[in-house]
């Protein structure tokens, strides 16, 4: 395999969780919910998928994979639902609660892989490998590129379609842009719609984690997410919260991270350079959006 081919493969593998988590962020932000917790929801999803993957008996065969993915989505949804409940019951801002839940998820995994879910030899801080039946098939033989990438693309298309063509998606958009008009003119139950979007957002992030476990790591360990959920915020914002745009920005950030790894190995440029570039891109994009906005405003 040529070097550039390997790069493309790696880039798409990296892009997969970024696209799914980016969708999660885009859905929530579109609903006016500041879900900063995609990372925690992703980790929760990874944990549930790993737990299913190591618990199922080998006899159920390939059924293990859908079970693991569904478990991951449910766990992500549940992790988001905690923040949604805190918001609707006690008015706790989701910006704060989701960040806190990120820490709980991250350190929760640290505990699990050293305690109840640690591999039998108790040497490594990780779980055993998941059942073969829970492995995501590869898309290109002999490479790491797996079907999860296709699932991510499909999810982006479905999300785009729902947002654009269904009443449910329209309600989410209206509630996010102007909750007052959504309620008064649209007779929309805004808290219900936004909380539902929040939970779907969590499910999408959970799925990202599950696919990462089933397609790449095949086990749960500490730092399963190198901040995917945070990069996802950049992915979603750069795409203008457009689900189809998230495919492109997800791949872009996947490329950046792949390149960063390569540069560090081969040339010694620190990996953090990629983070600096990512942040710079975000700043430029926000600045351009702002300038356009103020031009449009002064023209109105």
């Amino acid at each position, binding site marked *: 395999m040529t070097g550039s081919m390997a790069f493309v493969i790696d880039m798409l593998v990296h892009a997969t969780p970024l696209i799914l988590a980016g969708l999660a962020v885009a859905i929530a932000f579109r609903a006016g919910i500041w879900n900063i917790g995609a990372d925690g929801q992703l980790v929760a999803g990874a944990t549930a998928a790993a737990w299913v993957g190591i618990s199922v008996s080998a006899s159920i065969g390939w059924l293990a994979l859908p079970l693991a993915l569904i478990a991951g989505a449910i766990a992500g949804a549940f992790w988001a639902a905690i923040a949604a409940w805190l918001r609707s019951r006690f008015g706790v801002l989701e910006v704060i609660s989701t960040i806190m839940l990120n820490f709980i998820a991250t350190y929760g995994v640290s505990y699990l892989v050293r305690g109840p879910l640690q591999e039998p030899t108790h040497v490594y801080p990780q779980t055993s490998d998941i059942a073969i039946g829970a492995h995501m098939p590869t898309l290109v033989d002999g490479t790491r590129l797996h079907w999860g990438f296709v699932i991510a693309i499909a999810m982006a298309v479905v999300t785009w379609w729902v947002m654009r063509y*269904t*009443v449910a998606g329209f309600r989410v958009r209206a509630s996010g842009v102007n909750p007052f008009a959504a309620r*008064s*003119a*649209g007779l929309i139950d805004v808290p219900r719609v936004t909380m539902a979007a929040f939970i779907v957002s969590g499910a999408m992030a959970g799925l990202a984690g599950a696919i990462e476990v089933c397609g790449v790591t095949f086990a749960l360990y500490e730092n399963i997410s190198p901040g995917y959920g945070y990069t996802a915020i950049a992915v979603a914002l750069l795409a203008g919260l457009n689900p189809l745009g998230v495919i492109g920005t997800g791949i872009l950030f996947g490329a950046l991270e792949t390149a960063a790894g390569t540069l560090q190995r081969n040339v010694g440029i620190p990996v953090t350079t990629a983070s600096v570039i990512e942040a710079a891109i975000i700043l430029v994009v926000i600045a351009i959006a702002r300038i356009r906005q103020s031009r449009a405003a*002064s*023209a109105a």
Partner: protein
Amino acid sequence: MSDVALELASITKLFGRTRALSSATFAARHGTVHALLGENGAGKTTLMRIAFGMIRPDSGTIRIDGVGRVFASPSDAIGAGIGMVHQHFTLVPAMTVAENIALGGHGIMNPARIRAMIAELAERTGLSMDPDARIEDLPAGAQQRVEILKALSRDTRILILDEPTAVLTRMEARELLVRARDLVSHGGTAILITHKLRDALEFADDVTVLRRGATVWSGAVSDATEETLVSAMLGGERVRAESVAGVAASNPRSATPVMSLTNVSVRDTLGVERVKSATVAVRAGEILGVAAVEGNGQRELLRLLAGRMTADSGEVAIPPVVGFIPEDRQRDALVEDFSLRDNVALLGAGLRSGMMRWGEAREQTRELISNYDVRARDESLHARALSGGNQQKLVVGREIEGSRTALVAENPSRGLDVQATAAVHARIQAARDAGMAVVIYSSDLDEVLALANRVVVMYNGRAREVPLEHEVIGRAMVGLDLE
């Protein structure tokens, strides 16, 4: 020193392909109140924003005391002695009066000095304010005073007031205009952007009228009459304002009410009873007017009738879909960042499910645009791009066509010019004539009287029907008839 304090000479400004101002001229003299009249979208605010350095003109000259100036930003204009009070408040709600006035200043904040300045300003202008009051606790009239104090706190000699009375009650508005007169008695200049003819005739010395971005009339109030100003504002187009007056009382009405409240009470979040055991019935083919002074429970009453609020006790009987025209259309009726089509599709989206019928929504929007005279290029335009009058025409059309049985309208002509107001009134009357049950509230009693077949007065949360007489209603609104 020139007699002219602020002169704007042949100002032209294009926004995209839209010509907002074409060679507009304007001159305000020292020691005068100068009214800038014009319909919505005539370019009044744009012209004054240019004077205040918020917008740069494409061509034209700004002269202060006869000296040509170029303003790169409002701070340049402030430096030149210009102050502007915007139509929409620019205060920080969580901050105090003193903090808001100090905002925009330089250097270290010295609370004692700000207090002294406010006290001095209050004495000079008669606008007294508690410097420690929080903005969010103040009524609109008081917030307006803070805006003015803020504008005056920087050696302002030319004060621009953009539609200052739009958010005020009649009494507050009068007081404000009297204050404006006081200010100019010390040699300052006040510029009053308005579309209210009476305010201009009563309080201004000079008037400039803009129509479609051009100055069409300018001179002393003493040389103007209501007729000359109206025809200047509206041009060759016929004035249809008269059509508002004189509603035929003989409308076909059915006996069974379309909307009714029986002993309905509502408490706000603080537990204060806003509506107290109200009983109201609205029949098909009639307009029920609601008259009340701000804050007497009419807001809640309207939302009960419109199904936008649930009662704490009593019985509410209304159709499943009631058209509702809320007073704050930009907040409650429209999603300004959505297209017109999306805003039409918004109606009742919470009651539907499945797929969006975009083709249908597009057709409906096109029909509304043509049937309700919404001046919009097409249905893909963002609602934000429409003028207030056209936004309202769209909302009125959407709500009438969306229900066809019941309509509740709250201050439907707020912020609209004469023509748009007439159009909105005509639509509401047509809806009534077509057999809809209509409820209308306006803070302007004349508007209620012009449209209503019956009137209910809300006072202190209680609703009472009163005879259709100006005097009687006025007394009931302040509770005088109860004594």
